[in-house]
């Protein structure tokens, strides 16, 4: 066998081993698409509540509302909170499902070292962002919720991209830029939110599926 050919093969082998052991590569493009569809659905359902066509308070009993007013649990009495929770959960579960299917196909354990590292590095900016937005709600700064979500999510993706498919980084940049632009268009938050979590996810998912999963 040709010496050069052999050395090249060895180098490629080393490279793929390094990648495989340090990055979580089972992230499926379909996960992005499904999460995006969930986000668009959530945005559509919440539209009437956000822009005041429907009352966002679930229980109209004023006494209860006032009793809760000083408490965070007033959040639990809004339709928006439950729509957001359902959207988040369905996006997470569907994204998880397609990635689980892909990892089974590749024979890579879903909950290995690389997945753990990815989760931890993704969750640090997300948790900080969640706490920040939670406090912002407390002070009634609702207009900054959507840009806040986009900015922190973008930062989380940029941070996580070192531990998964490198293209995730560009999705992170896009979310970040969208969030920052949104800071100057407060009041259009839901549109920006839908564009970021819905359309960008779907576009990214389709691209990734085309590149990585189509032939698999």
């Amino acid at each position: 066998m040709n010496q050069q050919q052999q050395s090249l093969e060895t180098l490629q082998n080393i490279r793929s081993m390094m990648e495989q052991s340090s990055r979580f590569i089972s992230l499926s493009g379909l996960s992005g698409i499904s999460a995006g569809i969930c986000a668009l659905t959530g945005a559509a359902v919440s539209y009437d509540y956000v822009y005041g066509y429907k009352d966002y308070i679930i229980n109209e009993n004023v006494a209860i509302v006032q009793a809760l007013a000083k408490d965070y649990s007033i959040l639990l009495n809004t339709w928006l909170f439950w729509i957001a929770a359902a959207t988040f959960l369905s996006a997470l579960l569907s994204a998880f499902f397609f990635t689980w299917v892909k990892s089974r196909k590749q024979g890579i354990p879903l909950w290995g070292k690389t997945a753990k590292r990815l989760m931890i590095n993704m969750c640090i900016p997300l948790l900080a962002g969640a706490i920040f937005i939670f406090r912002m709600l407390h002070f009634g700064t609702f207009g900054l919720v959507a840009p806040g979500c986009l900015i922190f999510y973008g930062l989380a993706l940029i941070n996580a991209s070192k531990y998964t498919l490198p293209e995730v980084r560009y999705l992170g940049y896009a979310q970040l830029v969208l969030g920052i632009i949104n800071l100057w268009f407060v009041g259009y938050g839901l549109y920006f939110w839908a564009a970021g979590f819905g359309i960008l996810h779907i576009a990214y998912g389709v691209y990734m599926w085309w590149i990585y999963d189509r032939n698999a």
Partner: protein
Amino acid sequence: MKNPIDHLNKLFDSRVRLGIMSTLMVNADMNFNELKELLQITDGNLASHLKALEAQNIISVSKGFIGRKTNTMYRITKFGEKAFKAHLDALEKMIRATK
């Protein structure tokens, strides 16, 4: 000119050992099961390669416990890192030489 093959370390002359080394280059430590899953080989095969690398002081082994199960961790030594880098340099030179 000296034959570049002379610089290739015989110790790394197998797919499994290359796999172990490249993995340990980018991960601070790996345990036995993680290596096994990644390389998809049998326990015995992996153990014998790990033993050979350990004997040459290329990797270090530490045993611990997760609950009641033993957890054997492998790390690359300073010497092992140097040796593997030299091996990669030799591979690179060989590719250039034959161009």
